[in-house]
């Protein structure tokens, strides 16, 4: 099964795994401080600390955040049966950010004491879940999910969330304000081992669970009724996906902020190269997402060196034009690429 013009998924898999080590090495070596090889061998030296305490956790975070964003993007596209769905576009990320900001501004004291580092992921999860369920409910028609309604609802929810975050800034003290601003642009540069490990611990089971749904998601692409007739208990599948996607987006938003376009562009790219079969598309998207977000993080450090761009700006600068290009491409007569 390899229609003309498609790359074999195995080949792309091998290619991406080959590219991963050099990209990881690049991410470890590039930064405002250039590391010297001798110093790296000396535990406790400055370069050693930069590598192990700053760059390594940051690499881990960018890998898992990229994989999770791309995989949740692919999942939500199958769930809504539309290649234009994206956690950022339809407001899931904004809902997650709003809830995280609210938790920070209003619940900073006792809530933080009770939940510790889990406060923000938990709040972001609840925010993301609310928005996903809301969009699914709003865009639902007897014939399935309406794409136009879904995108319009996303626009509205994005604005509402942005406005609510704006309002909350007035209530926040100086420290929270800085933390809030840090989120909204998407940022990995304050990563420590705690957040990197937390994301890894959340991401691994989530990714395993999402990847298991590949075959059933293929059937869902045929249509909701068709999937039911092929033996899929669609309402349960949809509920599982909404919870998993909200958890994934919540985890990334709470630890890395708003990072747009990865969930949209990466699955699209893989679909263009290898076709829409989710059994291949989902693992490949995760891999390519990890790779590209790590590269974006390297760019974020290089472009305005020695300062740093928020990574959300980099992904928007690269992903935005790519998205426009895809829309143009579709307009010229070929559907979904």
């Amino acid at each position, binding site marked *: *099964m*390899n*229609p*003309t013009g498609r790359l074999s998924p195995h080949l792309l898999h091998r290619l991406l795994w080959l590219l991963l080590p050099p990209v990881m090495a690049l991410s470890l070596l590039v930064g405002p401080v250039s590391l010297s090889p001798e110093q790296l061998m000396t535990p406790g030296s400055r370069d050693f600390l930069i590598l192990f305490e700053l760059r390594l956790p940051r690499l881990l975070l960018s890998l898992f955040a990229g994989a999770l964003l791309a995989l949740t993007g692919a999942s939500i596209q199958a769930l809504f*049966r*539309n*290649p234009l769905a994206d956690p950022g576009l339809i407001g899931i990320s904004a809902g997650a950010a709003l809830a995280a900001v609210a938790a920070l501004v209003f619940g900073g004291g006792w809530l933080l004491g009770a939940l510790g580092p889990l406060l923000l992921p938990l709040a972001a999860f609840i925010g993301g879940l609310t928005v996903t369920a809301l969009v699914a409910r709003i865009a639902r028609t007897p*014939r*399935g999910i309406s794409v136009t309604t879904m995108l319009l609802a996303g626009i509205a929810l994005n604005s509402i969330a942005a406005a609510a975050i704006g309002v909350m800034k007035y209530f926040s003290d100086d420290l929270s304000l800085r933390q809030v601003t840090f989120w909204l642009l998407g940022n990995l540069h304050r990563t420590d081992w705690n957040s990197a490990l937390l994301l890894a611990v959340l991401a691994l089971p989530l990714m395993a669970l999402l990847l298991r749904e590949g*075959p059933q998601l*293929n*059937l869902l*692409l*045929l*249509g909701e*009724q*068709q999937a*039911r*007739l*092929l*033996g*899929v*208990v669609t309402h349960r599948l949809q509920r599982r996906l909404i919870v998993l996607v909200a958890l994934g987006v919540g985890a990334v938003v709470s630890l890395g902020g708003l990072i747009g376009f990865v969930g949209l562009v990466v699955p699209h790219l893989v*679909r263009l190269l290898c*076709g*829409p*079969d989710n059994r291949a598309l989902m693992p490949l998207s995760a891999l390519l997402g990890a790779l590209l977000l790590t590269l974006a993080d390297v760019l974020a450090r290089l472009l305005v060196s020695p300062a740093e761009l928020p990574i959300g700006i980099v992904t928007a600068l690269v992903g935005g034009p790519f998205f426009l290009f895809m829309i143009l491409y579709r307009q010229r007569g070929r*559907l*979904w*690429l």
Partner: protein
Amino acid sequence: MIAQGLEWHRQGRQVLHGLDLELAAGTLTVVLGPNGAGKSTLLQLLSGLESPTSGAVRLDGEALHGWSEPQRARQLAVMTQDQPLDFPFSVEEVVRLGAWPLGLSPQQEADHGRRWLQRLDLAQLAGRNYLQLSGGERQRVQLARVLAQCGEQSRVLLLDEPVSAMDLRHQHLCLRQLRRLADAGMAVLLILHDLALAAQYGDRVLLLKDGRALAQGPVPEVMTAALLSQLFEVGVDVRFEDGVLRFSSFVADDAFQA
């Protein structure tokens, strides 16, 4: 498969009125009727996608709505009219998706899919992007997908206008495959608009009008000029020539004047 006293209400409007229907193994039943008569609704109820307001659909004496989706999918294959697939799968991939309920190994699934591609004259299109096909070709691919769902446990096949967009040759090619499945022991229900095809391939016919069975029974008894004229509200002539039923329709000049 037996349906008894099927009633169905939608938004206060009654679409089906106490319909009885039996689909016996080895029989191909055709449903004929004007637009909006409740044909597709009937198929939705028979397929278990919707539960009837009253009455029941039973397969081997068991009420269908008690079945789990996977259990139902192994015995019942259904082609609905609406096929909203919007992703660039290849033709072969679409057909192979149909075999999912059978739980085949990848190799078996590939062989199974290829058999149905060949039977429906799709082998040359196997690698083509589904989204770039014509309407009739897409319909043939979706039919192949639904037929690929039929395995050893399959009992019932329900199809809503499966050949409406196809050219003549492919209409016959596809209907012959359905006839073959019926002859092999499956209960097949077809919604059609073409009277000649219905008479040629069907064993039994159900005439559905305003949610009621106007008549049902073997083709020669039910597909009469009187009943068909009453069903479609136009004149229908039926002649028996060279062993086949021939149909022609006519309307009076002032038939559609307000």
